[in-house]
């Protein structure tokens, strides 16, 4: 989900010894291994193989086609694993992993503004598939055992790595906003609060807060605006949930993945405004990635 490769390079922070991209790739790998060994979440290794191959081959081909060289494939690796974890198709079909993998990577090359891509690749692919094919896919049918120990491991590693990558403030801002806004929503609707804030403890939100909303390539540049955007994502998500509470006839995608859709709506707008404000210009042809 976190796009650690480069179509353009805003402010990707570095730690002293370890490239943050490796930390992020390591964390998603840890999540995959733990979830599979303990809960068999993959649902068939062919899904993992297809998603990884689609993402990496697409990245290699498109980067060569557009830039004349093959870029670092870590981003594609992360997208492939994320799609494997999140996508659950009807039956044993593999086409969602093929289309999802292609859409995730291709979105970086097609949906650009001032030389930057606007959507987190996995967020775009998941949102697009949920909107286009809700009868054939669902997201994260597994809950990883609803187990507090597993949750804690991923949260601890995730928070440590988010701090190392210097996006912890985004994660925390979103989590606090989610808790406050949905508590308020529950109160206004006279609903019990616990079920409304419960989803934040689930694995889908772990993937969301550690790999999607904090994507260094698609977040805005300034720290204070990053906080504002995180709040806005939570606000839009709460609005979607409110609409679902009221039974408004939303597309299934909004009921199923309100966080994904909120980020897919808010993220690109914020990024585009940020690029406009900063006066970013399209990267010169052939300028190499800086990370």
């Amino acid at each position, binding site marked *: 989900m976190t796009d650690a490769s480069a179509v353009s390079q805003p402010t990707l922070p570095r730690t002293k010894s370890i490239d943050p991209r490796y930390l992020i790739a390591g964390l998603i790998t840890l999540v995959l291994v733990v979830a599979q060994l303990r*809960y*068999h979440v993959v*649902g068939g290794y062919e899904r993992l193989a297809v998603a990884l191959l689609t993402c990496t081959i697409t990245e290699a081909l*498109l980067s060569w*086609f*557009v*830039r*004349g*060289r093959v870029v670092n494939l870590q981003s594609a690796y992360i997208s492939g694993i994320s799609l494997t974890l999140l996508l*659950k*198709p*009807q*039956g*044993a079909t593999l*086409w969602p992993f093929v*289309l999802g993998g*292609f*859409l995730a990577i*291709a*979105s970086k*090359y*097609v949906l*650009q503004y001032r030389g930057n891509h606007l959507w987190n690749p996995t967020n775009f692919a998941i949102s*697009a598939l*949920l909107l*286009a*094919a*809700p*009868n*054939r*896919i*669902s997201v994260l*049918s*597994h*809950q990883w*055992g*609803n*187990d*507090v120990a597993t*949750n804690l491991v991923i949260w601890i590693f995730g928070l440590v790595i988010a701090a190392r990558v210097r996006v912890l403030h985004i994660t925390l801002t979103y989590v606090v906003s989610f808790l406050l806004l949905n508590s308020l929503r529950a109160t206004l609707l006279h*609903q*019990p609060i*616990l*079920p*409304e804030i*419960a*989803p934040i*403890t*689930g*694995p*889908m939100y772990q993937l969301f807060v550690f790999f999607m909303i904090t994507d260094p390539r698609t977040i805005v540049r300034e720290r204070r605006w990053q906080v504002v955007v995180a709040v806005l994502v939570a606000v839009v998500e709460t609005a979607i949930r409110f609409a679902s509470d009221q*039974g408004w006839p939303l597309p*299934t*995608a909004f*009921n*199923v993945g309100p966080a994904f859709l909120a980020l897919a709506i808010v993220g690109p707008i914020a990024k585009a405004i940020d690029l406009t404000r900063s006066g970013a210009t399209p990267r010169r*042809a*052939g*300028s*190499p990635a800086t990370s």
Partner: protein
Amino acid sequence: MPAKPAPKHQGLRRLLIAVPFVGAIVAAIRMDSAPSRATTDVTHPGFALRDETAAAGIHFVHHRPTFDPKIANIEPHVAGLGASVSVADFDGDGWPDLYFTNSRFGEPNALYRNRGDGTFEDVAASAGLADLNRPGEGVSMGSVWGDFDNDGREDVLVYRYGYLALFKNVDGKHFQDVTEAAGLHRWVNSNGAIWLDYDRDGLLDLYVTAYFRDDVDLWHLSTTRIMHNSFEFATNGGKNLMFHNLGNGKFEDVTDKLGVGSTRWTLAAAAADLNEDGWPDLYLANDYGPEELYINDHGKRFTLQTPGLESESKSGMAVALGDVFNRGHLDVFVTNISEKGYLFQNNNLRVNELTDAGQRRFHNVADPVVADAGWAWGAQFGDLNNDGNNELFVVNGFISDDPKTNYWYSMSKIAGANARLFEDAKTWPAFGHASLSGFEPSRVYLNRGLSGWADVAKTVGVTDLADGRAVAFADLSNRGALDVIVANQNQPAILYRNRPDSTNHWIELSLTGTRSNRSAIGAEVVLETSGFKQRRVVDGGMGFASQNDRRLHFGLGHTEWVDRIVIHWPSGEQQILANPAVDRIHAVTEPKS
């Protein structure tokens, strides 16, 4: 080293990429709307099912239970089970009869005696099998029939959210409650039970599955922490129980001795000799957990094995056994939950390769057609068109209430929570009058062999949208056609009368054990004729809360002869019938020596 110059016309190149990019989105939209339920290419499935419930005189309506007001917020969910149907010729007149259970205090169960003329009469009250839903005793969740005392008359065990109840068939008309004397007066919040002879001593033993813990009295709750501790790997359900039939009218709890006391919220069990070593094995469908296969070690102990079952945890609702590809082995179908957008657990169609030296495992071959049957419950295999291949009938739908209010959104919130939260029933969002996978059409899957399955429900006349729970097959008119009986939750039962293609042939076997149990439960029959070999088992309960006709039905297509039939009796005796006549029911008694 200087950077390699980028290719020219990057904008144009990106534009070129946009073509397949848009194409991928269009492809996803097209895949979404493409018919996964292949209904259009099978216009002549070779049989028709007609709802003849009223004409048959069946007017049974299931009523769901009401529980302690402390869990009123999710009562529709907790009270969502209990509609069952089982088939047995209780009066020994050669016509299969039907027993439906009810689940509300004061509402009677129904025992429909088959008059043999296409109609039925409810004799439950006179038989003593009606008034079984009483405060302090519990409410019925289902029943299984078997001749536990080998007196030639089918007895019945009623499992409840409450005390088990065993009734001895006294004279083919009246039943006597022998629960206490049998040592079965146990409070078990059960949704399933099966008869089997696990030690092959000629006496039917009993395996009872448990759902809620046995210290839970749903009408007098001391705590609301009664729910599962995981949506996927829950282990805090009631403990399944195995009772050994001692032969003197008494049963002994041998659960721990045999190692079959799963606490995984088992909803259904089926028994058959799946590895074909001569001993009946146990296959469990567990709600909120993975399926479990207990391999029988010579009647001494069962060992839990996971040959090919470990890939995913789901919400098993029913187990049906049938020979899917006419290979002479019993394959396994387990129903699960699918809801578009929210959850695709997918049903499992597991091809049995346990006897294949190179495999020794099950292989899941469920394509999207059979994988997604909605919130699927009961299922059965049977040759509905008599063409020699097993069809698959799946009933579904959980709660049909207000069609405009969907609980799935609420479910998606609670399902992602930590277990400590949803283990407590009172923290669940209130159901109100919401539907949850309601109004789903049953699936009738036509078996097209290697060409896959096609849902022909509408074509053959199955159009009801009731909340199906149990489904059973029986040749109710002794005419070589499998009729379909469906028990619906909180709704009327349905009898679908089957009219298969009259040009196809069939053969049926009515087995009576001598050294084996008289009901011949557990007997496996392999029919061999030119072109195929098919295995069936006499079940002591199969599907979900259901039991089929004890007689075994084989369709033969246009084949007018059978080479031979091999009967594997539970005792270990093997009997061969050479060239039996087709288009008739054969009564076969086990050789005594």
